[in-house]
């Protein structure tokens, strides 16, 4: 399967220094994901879990204090893979909108209030395509009609459009040059539910029409359920779980994911929605071990000190949780015990491999650490 963007062990920190005090906010800390061609990849998590930072890095918006401390982002649109770190600002600018585009939050006012929509389209397209104004206008009109938007919006000012229409116009503005990868940040936030549905359908339609790839960031699990093909759940800058969307909703393995999904209302279910107690940690001083452990109802001793391994639990399904690690190690231990039925030796052989609270962590057997 073709990988459009590969994020490998990415560490993106906000490093600030004021009055001699250096402060490091580890917004994304050791994240590896691969975005496949023509999929809609969802990124979920509460506010302050690194979603927006990941977006900025994906778009190459690396303005201080945001710094990439480690890892890499590699694009592979057509032909050879390109490492983002090797691109100059000018090259990144040239790539944007043609290959890499951005749909901002629905609540943001990203359209210039004193310019007509037509002029904004001319500005944005004219920056990347050399064409006579008439040609650009014609192209915009055709695209809007294709997406089912009324072309009379072109003569309007942003404030004359409804919030939903503004967001759809913005999506058209971001996608008209058929970029290979579209990054959307909370595209449906601040819109009412009916309009949200329209926006979701519009995004799906664009993907089907142009065959491009989308990364959609939202905290709204309902949007993920309706829009995305795969979902990554982030917490405190790290990957907690990743799976195909149906899998993650049917069999969430990580306690955090389970909580996120359980907070969604369901028809016919009148039980009270439980929210996760507490809030995401401050990322300048995250908790040790598993970063979710202070809020996790199943937290064990090991969770407080050791970072869980990311483990493959099914096709396309990865989880980073000690519950899964331990279960897996238990199975391995059992298998080893069955293979060599020497009751006395079993204990001495396996003890060092079983992670003990506070002790040094071993690789956990041959299959223990995948990726």
């Amino acid at each position, binding site marked *: 399967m073709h990988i459009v963007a590969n994020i490998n062990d990415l560490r993106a920190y906000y490093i600030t220094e004021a009055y001699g005090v250096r402060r490091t906010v580890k917004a994304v800390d050791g994240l590896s994901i691969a975005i496949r061609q023509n999929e809609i990849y969802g990124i979920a998590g509460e506010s302050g879990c690194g979603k927006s930072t990941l977006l900025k890095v994906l778009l190459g918006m690396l303005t201080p204090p945001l710094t990439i401390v480690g890892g890499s982002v590699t694009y592979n649109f057509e032909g050879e893979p390109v490492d983002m770190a090797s691109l100059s600002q000018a090259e990144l600018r040239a790539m944007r909108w043609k290959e890499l585009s951005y749909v901002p939050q629905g609540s943001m006012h990203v359209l*210039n209030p004193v310019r007509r929509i037509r002029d904004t389209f001319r500005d*944005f397209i004219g920056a990347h395509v050399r064409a006579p104004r008439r040609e650009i206008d014609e192209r915009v009109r055709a695209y809007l009609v294709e997406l089912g938007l009324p072309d009379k919006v072109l003569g309007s000012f942003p404030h004359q459009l409804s919030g939903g229409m503004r967001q759809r116009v913005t999506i058209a503005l971001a996608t008209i040059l058929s970029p290979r990868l579209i990054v959307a940040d909370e595209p449906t936030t601040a819109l009412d539910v009916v309009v949200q549905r329209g926006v979701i359908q519009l995004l799906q339609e664009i993907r089907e029409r142009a065959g491009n790839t989308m990364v959609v960031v939202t905290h709204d699990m309902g949007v993920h359920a309706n829009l995305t093909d795969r979902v990554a759940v982030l917490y405190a800058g790290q990957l907690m779980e990743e799976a195909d969307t149906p899998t993650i909703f049917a069999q969430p393995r990580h306690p955090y994911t389970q909580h996120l999904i359980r907070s969604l209302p369901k028809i016919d279910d009148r039980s009270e929605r439980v929210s996760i107690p507490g809030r995401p940690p401050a990322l300048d001083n995250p908790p040790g071990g598993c970063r979710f452990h202070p809020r996790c109802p199943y937290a064990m001793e090991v969770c407080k000190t050791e970072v869980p391994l990311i483990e493959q639990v099914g096709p396309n399904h990865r989880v980073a949780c000690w519950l899964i690690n331990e279960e897996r190690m238990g199975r391995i231990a059992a298998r080893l015990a069955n293979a060599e039925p020497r009751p006395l030796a079993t204990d001495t052989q396996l003890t060092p491999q079983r992670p003990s609270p506070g002790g040094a962590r071993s690789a956990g057997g041959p299959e223990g650490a995948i990726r």
Partner: protein
Amino acid sequence: MDLLKTYILPRLLQWLVVIVIGVTITFTIPRLLPGDPVEQTLRRVTANTAIDPRAMESFQNAIRDMYGLQGSPVEQYFRFWGRLFQGDLGPSLGAFPTPVTTIIANGLPWTIGLLGTSILISWTLGILLGTLAAYYPNKLWSQTLDKILIVIYPVPYFILSLLLVMAFAYYLPIFPLVGGATGRPGFTLAYIGSILRHAFLPALSLVLLGTSFRFLIAKALAGRVIASSYVSYAELAAVPTPRIIGRYVLRNSLLPQVTDLALSLGALFNGALITEVVFSYPGIGFQLYTAILQADFNLIMGVTIFSIIGIATAVLIADLIYPLLDPRVRYQ
């Protein structure tokens, strides 16, 4: 049509009301002051002479008539308006019997030429520099400019202008010290050159101060626009920088500046009192100053009425231009 009814007409009405109230106040205040101008004039004229009481009375009536002060205050008020509509502001009391309108007409071209030009220059310069400095806050030139103008701005105007006069008219006599021009008026190169030479220092003082003021305002306004999401989105989309500065930043921060320009141009009819006094420039401000010293009520009233009408009209024009600049106002 709707625009006319909901936007233009109310503003025209407002303009009218402001002028009527302003003129009424201008009419009332001198009449509430202690002392009767007629008595004062009589006393001045007849200080050391004895006059027949009947001759005195007819003299009194003649002056009262000339000053427009006969009849009850209400009658006077309506006669005042009637004269105003005919463009008659009465005679100057200081330079009797020259009409106030003639005196103002003599001063106005000088003031308009000097103030109008320097306001336009400092407005354009201040906004352009301020916007650019806001967009490039880390460049050396913008920081230098910022520091220089921030030092100039709080200097009291009369000190700045006196310094200029002392430096460039007295110690280094490059520019003339007094007046608007020398030589015979006419469209000759020499006369126009003389006008420019005389206007240079006062204009420089006004431009320096006006530019630094507008620079600081423009920088603050543009800074707010630059932080808005439509500017960062356009930047992200790699829209060319000149276009972002012109059509996004400048265009959106221009609105309050237009009001400022209109008010400055409206205040033109006040004259630049301090400028014209310091540089002995023959404009309206200088005349107003002389009128105040001579207790020339008619001339003071004349200049005041001019400036009331000027500012009210300027605000009206600014209001009428607003919808052209900001579509959000147009469709409210």
